[in-house]
């Protein structure tokens, strides 16, 4: 979808216009989806209202309001994808009386009425415009295929007798195209407007929700931080420190044996040296786990290539990163890949793995796939829960798909912060 800025300005304008129109079309078609769901929800609301008049609606009402909330949440998620994020309000109050007094429920009722009518119409219209354009532009072709018979063309404005008429219809198609390009973005905005206006929570509630969300992610960040410190402490105590203690023990033994029995002293010194070397190796591993030097000195792709080379399962790294991200983001990405590859090596039984890195606008997307046996589960004490904590602490997302039998795909998306 991206265009190069080096092209001449005028062409860029056309391309930009076409791109905005296509985006708009995409949004309108998405909106058509939620509009169709809104029709169902509106129908349910009306049935419930009628049922209330006869007195049996009370049983239906909670379900209806829940369905309405689900549909509204879909629209919130859809709008959040291409505009400012719209957070969901508190859950629908369980008691009907309170639910009907709830401001967000009321606004959702208003929204469903507008979106299921205006939104549906706009969605259908947006779909019709380009279809008309295609049909009329290619009209001479159809006319020829049908064998020169008189047909009604365009909007039924005229009857086509000859080639002139057929090409005139083509011109009409061009007009459709221009109209599509011109109005689609506006229509998309108009279709989204009721949702943007009615679906966000109250201003106060919105802020409260944001604070709650930030508090949660901040707590997760601190948790992740603590878990990380704990891991380092473990590694230092149970690994490096034990090695160094062994060194002192063996040196002590060697010193005592030096005069009595040189063979024992020699053996102890030999082991002491081995233990010291192990301590160094483990220290290197710990340091690399904290912040790999290659990440600090070179680039994320280099660091990941080094990781992949260390992985016992053959692993390909496909990284296309034009610029660097914030250091903490790169460290998190590195950590996620390291943990994921550890899992691949330990549990998956995979024959090969792939790590793909891409940067889209201000997000870094990392995908780790393997052809192993699948069935990976966050709850089983693998490092997956740790990855999620760290990623979410950076306001990122973490999605794991691992059906039994494989393949396993792990997708992490992080805001780049630069």
């Amino acid at each position, binding site marked *: 979808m991206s265009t190069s800025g080096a092209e001449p300005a005028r062409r860029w304008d056309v391309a930009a216009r076409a791109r905005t129109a296509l985006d708009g079309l995409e949004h309108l078609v998405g909106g058509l989806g939620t509009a169709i769901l809104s029709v169902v929800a509106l129908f349910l609301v009306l049935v419930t209202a009628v049922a209330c008049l006869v007195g049996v609606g009370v049983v239906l009402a909670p379900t209806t309001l829940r369905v309405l909330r689900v549909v509204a949440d879909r629209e919130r998620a859809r709008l959040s994808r291409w505009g400012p994020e719209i957070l969901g309000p508190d859950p629908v109050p369980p008691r009907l009386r309170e639910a009907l007094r709830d401001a967000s429920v009321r606004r959702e009722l208003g929204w469903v009425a507008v979106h299921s009518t205006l939104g549906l119409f706009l969605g259908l219209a947006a779909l019709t415009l380009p279809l008309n354009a295609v049909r009329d532009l290619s009209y001479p072709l159809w006319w020829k295929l049908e064998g020169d018979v008189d047909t009604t063309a365009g909007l039924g404005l005229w009857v086509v007798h000859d080639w002139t008429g057929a090409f005139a219809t083509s011109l009409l198609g061009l007009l459709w195209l221009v109209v599509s390009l011109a109005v689609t973005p506006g229509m998309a905005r108009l279709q989204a407007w009721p949702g943007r206006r009615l679906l966000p929570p109250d201003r106060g509630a919105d802020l409260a929700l944001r604070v709650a969300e930030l508090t949660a992610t901040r707590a997760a960040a601190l948790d992740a931080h603590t878990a990380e410190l704990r891991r380092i402490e473990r590694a230092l105590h149970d690994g490096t420190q*034990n090695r160094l*203690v062994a060194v*002192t023990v063996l040196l002590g*033994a060697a010193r*005592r044996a030096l005069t009595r029995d040189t063979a024992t002293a020699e053996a*102890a010194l030999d082991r002491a040296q081995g233990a010291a070397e192990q301590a160094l190796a483990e220290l290197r591993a710990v340091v690399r786990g904290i912040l790999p030097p290659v990440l600090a000195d070179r680039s994320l792709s280099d660091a990941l290539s080094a990781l992949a080379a260390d992985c016992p399962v053959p692993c390909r790294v496909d990284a296309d990163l034009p610029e660097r991200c914030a250091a903490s983001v790169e460290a998190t990405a590195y950590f996620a890949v390291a943990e994921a590859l550890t899992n691949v090596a330990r549990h998956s039984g995979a024959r090969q793995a792939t790590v793909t890195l891409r940067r889209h606008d201000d997000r870094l997307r990392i995908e780790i796939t393997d052809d192993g046996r699948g069935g990976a589960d966050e709850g089983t004490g693998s490092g997956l829960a740790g990855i999620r904590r760290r990623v979410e602490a950076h306001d990122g997302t973490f999605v794991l798909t691992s059906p039994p039998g494989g393949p396993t795909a792990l997708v992490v998306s992080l805001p780049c912060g630069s």
Partner: protein
Amino acid sequence: MRIVIAEDDPLLREGLALLLRAESLDVVATTGTPDEFLAAVDEHRPDTAIVDVRMPPTHSDEGITAAVEARRRHPDLAVLVLSAYVEQAFATELLSHGGARLGYLLKERVGRVQEFLDALHRVAGGGTAIDPEVVAQLLARTRPDSRLERLSPRERDVLALMAEGLGNTAIADRLVVTEGAVHKHIRNIFAKLDLAPTDRSDRRVTAVLRYLDDTRRRR
């Protein structure tokens, strides 16, 4: 002396065994988990067990639990606990049933072979060995206005060595004074801290540590 070692790190385990065997001590079994350790103690009936605090499965304080259990089954067993770092709560838990035949040392003390062997023999002989680091922490954390303030610097030195589990002779050697002087210092210390005087070194350790622990808690 017949010894069973419980240490999950293979290198350290073998290092310890090598050191002790080179000193002509009889290492009858080396084990890596609490269960193996308890089984080995039941089977070999050693005089002394050397136990690491961190053991599988969770690597927290399984070693302490195993040591306490081994002592419950065999009350005469001398236990020397080795720890990667000073955790005063471990020492307190170990000593809650008295300090006889008990030791708690930092792992790296093993490298000072003579001191380590002294501690090992002291524990096997019915005494106590507490790491100087534990004692130092207890002394340092005590309230400034406590009765400890009344002790002279020399008396504080004696108190620290006493808390480590050293007997009068050993204290006299370390401080290069006569045994009589040490005896006098100890009488003064007990008087100033309102502790019941005793000559058995393991009871002395328990009394002193309990006193220090109390002053620390009351802060």
